[in-house]
């Protein structure tokens, strides 16, 4: 057994802890381990692992994002263990359990060729899933037509329930009424501030590096804290531990190269990827217009697994985005850019004599965000977070487990907001530490209840903030039932907030700061109610209602003066809505239809949001309040061929209509109109009473893969915005200049992969 010198005390503690709390398991065996791909030794998340005895099913589970599975409370005896996963041949093996406490296994699954007469699982969606949760696999990302070869998480998320994007530029995602800064995005457990690129189809997470994604559109458990809207928890691939592979791709939008392989065969691997956008170079040629937007991202992961009980990795991502909004002759161009760095290490350990699992995450995350106008620095912000997190998963009984952990986060923040909030230069340090406990309880295959609480200690104010969370899932018919009902409720608090100017539709500048108004931190309460129904093996429908109450939201006070500087006030947010969907998945066809209804209202707490025509403005719909959204995906994949189509419709977003421009003659003194010009102002209606035109767009793609010796070449033809809808991206009220989203954009993409 290899020793783990770095964590002996923690493992000892975990072992003792488990021994105390799980006496009921003393006479039973725990079967645990990892599911991996046989050709690469990479973990396979979502694999269904089932133990069957002479009288049928004994117990089953699904492997998690690390490919880890654990089945508790198995009596000694002879069983058949089977593991099945979409696109893979089912593995079956006889398992004889004796008097040992724990059996640790590695189950290797082989990708199944279609022509083989083998049991192939075509789809096995998770059951007993909390409301708001969606799991995304690389196969899902492939189902959307994307302008580069291979899918991307950003493009896929825009079709997810409750997600609204501001357009095809800016990289801003709003989840069920929340703002982008309220989304917690984790990559292998480490924070990444803004991983979505300035061209909205792309993120730092292309399909080729993604292993598994869990998204929580609210109602998330106690192990996630620090954000109030949603969680996007991305697990990346480890890289091939057995053989080398490479990839190069080229499209009018971007170029990409990727390499992976073993550093120590079977044990240590690397995965490296670099992508660079090309659209600023290709758009003038292909579209006849300038699209001055560019980005690049670099990804490197090193991963090691030692026997079948220890796995450690280091993940590093750097992204850089830059864009310019051309505002016409009379106003200077606006130039904005941001850079992300996320470097994190993660270890998973299974102590040999303990049923407790230990996860350690530590990392550093950095973002730098700048906005310039006419070459002069107008706003800048940066934030650096160093964090460490220890998570334990302990078995309480055959049908219950406890998750608990400790975390500490240190943030260094700096900003120069002279032309935004009137703050010239400021620096801040924010330190938080805390922990959480979460219990998962099952009653047969009908009930599952998760209850937890997160506690965050702020040494600055010596205050402790508690965030209780509760969710329950009821499947009246058990595992064979067709209906599933779920509910979740919880309190959430955001320690570090991103302040952006919601008045400025084209700006993507976000300044990170703790409690920007009077030190008050944003808080939210979530309530989710869900229902799902299986209509046969391939067809599923569902609906989910949600209610959010948000307090202490920093929002800019509307100003009629034509300038960026503003002050902030606190608002309360109320979000309510429902998402309904139908999904059909029967290879080679896949179809998805979703509808979202949402209503977001902000109320200025102290009534000072604005005084308009003699009346105070207290309530308004913020500019991301998309009332209705319809998403449809169609995909056909067979052999070397794949055809995708995706259509989305969204009703118009709120905006503030103008009445015109004039000069204010401020009679705070005897203002001499003969020598003084006045102060130019844009005269608005009351804020956000107007609605932009509806948005809809159809994208298609068709691709074929060719085998060429030891490599394969994929050729893809496609078009973005097939019927050339003039979707509005941005309207500059100062110049009346309209900027549309991408027009019809046909493309050809190539991807070459070595095998």
């Amino acid at each position: 057994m290899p020793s783990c010198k770095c964590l002996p005390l923690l493992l000892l503690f975990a072992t003792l802890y488990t021994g105390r709390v799980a006496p009921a398991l003393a006479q039973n065996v725990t079967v645990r381990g990892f599911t991996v791909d046989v050709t690469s030794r990479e973990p396979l998340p979502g694999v269904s692992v089932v133990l069957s005895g002479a009288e049928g099913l004994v117990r089953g589970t699904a492997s998690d994002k690390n490919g880890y599975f654990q089945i508790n409370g198995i009596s000694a005896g002879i069983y058949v263990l089977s593991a099945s996963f979409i696109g893979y041949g089912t593995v079956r093996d006889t398992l004889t359990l004796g008097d040992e406490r724990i059996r640790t296994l590695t189950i290797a699954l082989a990708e199944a060729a279609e022509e083989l007469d083998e049991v192939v699982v075509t789809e096995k969606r998770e059951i007993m899933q909390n409301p708001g949760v969606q799991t995304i696999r690389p196969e899902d990302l492939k189902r959307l037509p994307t302008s580069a070869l291979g899918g991307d998480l950003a493009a896929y998320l825009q079709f997810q329930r409750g997600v609204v994007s501001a357009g095809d530029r800016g990289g801003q995602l709003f989840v069920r009424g929340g703002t982008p800064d309220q989304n917690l995005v984790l990559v292998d457990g480490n924070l990444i501030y803004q991983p979505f690129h300035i061209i909205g189809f792309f993120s730092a997470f292309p399909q080729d590096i993604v292993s598994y994604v869990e998204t929580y559109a609210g109602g998330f458990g106690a192990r996630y804290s620090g954000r109030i809207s949603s969680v996007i928890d991305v697990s990346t691939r480890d890289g091939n531990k057995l053989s080398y592979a490479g990839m190069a791709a080229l499209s009018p939008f971007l170029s990409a190269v990727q390499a992976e392989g073993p550093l120590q065969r079977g044990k240590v691997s690397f995965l490296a990827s670099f992508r660079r956008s090309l659209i600023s170079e290709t758009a003038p040629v292909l579209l006849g217009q300038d699209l001055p937007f560019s980005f690049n991202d670099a990804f490197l992961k090193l991963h090691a697994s030692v026997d079948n009980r220890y796995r450690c990795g280091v993940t590093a991502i750097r992204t850089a985005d830059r864009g310019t909004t051309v505002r016409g002759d009379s106003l200077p161009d606006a130039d904005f850019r941001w850079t992300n760095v996320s470097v994190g290490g993660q270890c998973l350990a299974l102590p040999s004599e303990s049923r407790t699992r230990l996860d350690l995450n530590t990392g550093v995350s950095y973002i730098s965000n700048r906005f310039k106008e006419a070459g002069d620095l107008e706003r800048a912000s940066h934030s650096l977070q160093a964090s460490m997190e220890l998570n334990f998963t302990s078995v309480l009984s055959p049908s219950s487990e406890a998750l608990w952990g400790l975390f500490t986060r240190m943030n260094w923040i700096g900003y120069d907001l002279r032309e935004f909030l009137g703050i010239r230069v400021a620096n801040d340090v924010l330190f938080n530490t805390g922990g959480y406990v979460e219990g998962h309880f099952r009653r047969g295959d009908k009930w599952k209840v998760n209850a937890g609480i997160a506690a965050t200690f702020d040494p600055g104010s010596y205050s402790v903030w508690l965030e209780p969370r509760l969710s329950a899932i009821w499947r009246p018919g058990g595992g064979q039932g067709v209906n599933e009902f779920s509910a979740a409720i919880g309190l959430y608090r955001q320690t570090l907030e991103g302040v952006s100017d919601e008045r400025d539709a084209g700006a993507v500048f976000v300044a990170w700061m703790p409690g920007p108004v009077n030190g008050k931190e944003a808080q939210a309460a979530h309530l989710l109610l869900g229902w799902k129904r299986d209509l046969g093996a391939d067809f599923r429908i569902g609906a989910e209602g949600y209610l959010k109450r948000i307090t202490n939201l920093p929002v800019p006070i509307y100003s009629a003066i034509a300038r960026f500087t503003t002050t902030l006030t606190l608002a309360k947010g109320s979000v309510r809505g429902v998402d309904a969907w139908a999904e059909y998945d029967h290879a080679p066809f896949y179809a998805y239809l979703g509808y979202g209804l949402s209503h977001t209202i902000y109320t200025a707490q102290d009534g000072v949001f604005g005084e308009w025509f003699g009346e105070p403005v207290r309530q308004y719909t913020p500019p991301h309040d998309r009332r209705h959204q319809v998403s449809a995906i169609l995909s056909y994949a067979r052999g070397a061929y794949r055809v995708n189509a995706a259509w989305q419709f969204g009703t118009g977003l709120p905006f503030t209509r103008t009445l015109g421009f004039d000069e204010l003659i401020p009679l705070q003194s005897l203002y001499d109109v003969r020598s003084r010009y006045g102060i130019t102002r844009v005269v608005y209606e009351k804020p956000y009473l107007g609605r932009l035109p509806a948005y809809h767009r159809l994208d298609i793609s068709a691709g074929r893969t060719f085998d060429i010796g030891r490599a394969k070449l994929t050729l893809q033809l496609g078009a973005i915005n097939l019927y050339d809808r003039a979707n509005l991206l941005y309207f500059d009220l100062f110049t009346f200049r309209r900027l549309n989203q991408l027009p019809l954009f046909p493309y050809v993409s190539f991807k070459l992969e070595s095998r």
Partner: protein
Amino acid sequence: MKRCSGIARCERFAAALLVLGATLVWGCSVDFDPRSEARDLYFSVGGFLNATADTQFVRVMPLRDTLFPEDRQIDAEVSLEDLSTGEVTAWSDSVFTIAGKPVHNFWSATPLAYGRQYRFEVHRSDGAQTVATVSVPDSFPRPELCVGNDSTNQYDPPVIVITGVERVADLSLIYDVRSSADPPTVHTLVATRYSDLVEPLGFTYVARMDVLRDLPRLSTALRVPERDVIVQNVTLQVAAAREDWPDVKLDLETLALPGVVTNVQHGLGYLGAVAVKTVPWPEALTYLSIIGVSVEGDLPPISKPSELCGKLLHN
């Protein structure tokens, strides 16, 4: 391709295709106008009528769709009606170029009367009109200037007491200054505002004149150190207005919000009216010399303040 097995099914399929096609066509062109549909605001009016001045200037600009004005010609006729007599005066347009941009200041040399109400009208050729009704304040007494004259109060900031006005629109000190390097014939006028220090006190207004705060501004205006500033004369200017005059303490953001401060119908802005009194204040020179500011000219003795002044100075 779907095959139609019956006429009815074919028709339904064709209808569906038509709907789809119409949707696509509809999708290809999207007009968008961010302007409000309820646009009954025609002109922006700004400035004030001055009962004391011989010529009136008021800014009149059409509400426009561009950030900066472009037209040197505007479709506007301006008149002022004395609501007491019914007399109507037509005003003249004059295009000023300020900061490189054309602005329209309409003017009239017709005298205004204290205490009268006037109707300011801007007409467009299509009949649209913007109207402001404005009341000229009454004439008011000379403000009382309080300066300490003994050892207990001679260093206290002077106090101005203004009576007989509904609101103080402006209170300024106008300094006649020169640099010590300049000959005495050089005169530079620098105005410093005290409107923000005016406080109501019963039916009067008082302002404590902390003139030491003006020294940096004088030095900046002359571009010399404060020790080289020589004050030659001080004049007080008070502008009285009716009570609907905007609160001078309103911040600019609030003032800029449409409709918060306005007396203009079918338009924007605010047209005020003032009566201005300019009062020479020789005793200020004496006070300035006492507190160490360089002055020149006759330094009159400070007379004994009134009982009210004594109390105000003492406080």
